[in-house]
């Protein structure tokens, strides 16, 4: 089984194959790319009262889901297995197949270069874990309002 297939199966294991199964009214759609399953689940629980939320745990699946599902916003961890968050940002930047959605970086790294590097790829908001979930919700609302 290839890496992409395995990643896809993992995404299915989390019960989040596509937005189609979630779609009811036209809520904004958010993709969380986060390898810490428990943290991702907590953020999802917080957001899914107001948004459609899809979760995957690695960059390769993240790129595929951005292309296929065209989320309105992505919450991106940087330290991901396989393809890092920065590599994903680079791939989005050079890809002609997809218009990059607004991205919020949510990282546990204390590296001081993370925020400037992310801003250089067009990321508006960088949040450093631990961060109150209220701030994540506020950042999501701000980003979606800015894009509207």
């Amino acid at each position: 089984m290839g890496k992409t297939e395995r990643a896809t199966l993992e995404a299915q294991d989390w019960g989040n194959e596509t937005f189609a199964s979630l779609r009811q009214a036209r809520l904004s759609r958010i993709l969380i790319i986060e390898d810490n399953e428990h943290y991702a689940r907590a953020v999802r629980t917080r957001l899914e009262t107001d948004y459609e939320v899809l979760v995957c745990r690695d960059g390769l699946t993240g790129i595929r889901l951005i292309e296929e599902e065209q989320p309105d916003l992505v919450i991106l961890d940087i330290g991901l297995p396989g393809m890092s968050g920065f590599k994903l940002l680079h791939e989005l930047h050079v890809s002609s197949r997809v218009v990059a959605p607004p991205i919020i970086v949510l990282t546990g790294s204390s590296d001081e270069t993370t925020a400037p590097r992310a801003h250089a790829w067009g990321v508006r908001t960088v949040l450093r874990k631990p961060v109150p979930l209220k701030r994540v919700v506020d950042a999501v609302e701000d980003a979606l309002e800015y894009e509207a």
Partner: protein
Amino acid sequence: MSEGTLEDEELHQDLGHHMRSPLAAIHAHAENLRDELSGRLTEAQAQEVGAILASCEKLEALIGRLLREQETKTR
């Protein structure tokens, strides 16, 4: 700086980062409980969740201090 000391500091930094990740998850789930996303809490349950959150914040502050000290040493 000796090789052993450098390895120790890298180990401390790694430990700090690896501890932060599950701690962030515990903190986030406790926030969801506190904000009653999974249902109403009794007063006693709310106090228990408050204690979890307070302990998370203490541990996060300790880890943050540890990481900052290690970063200062390695500069």
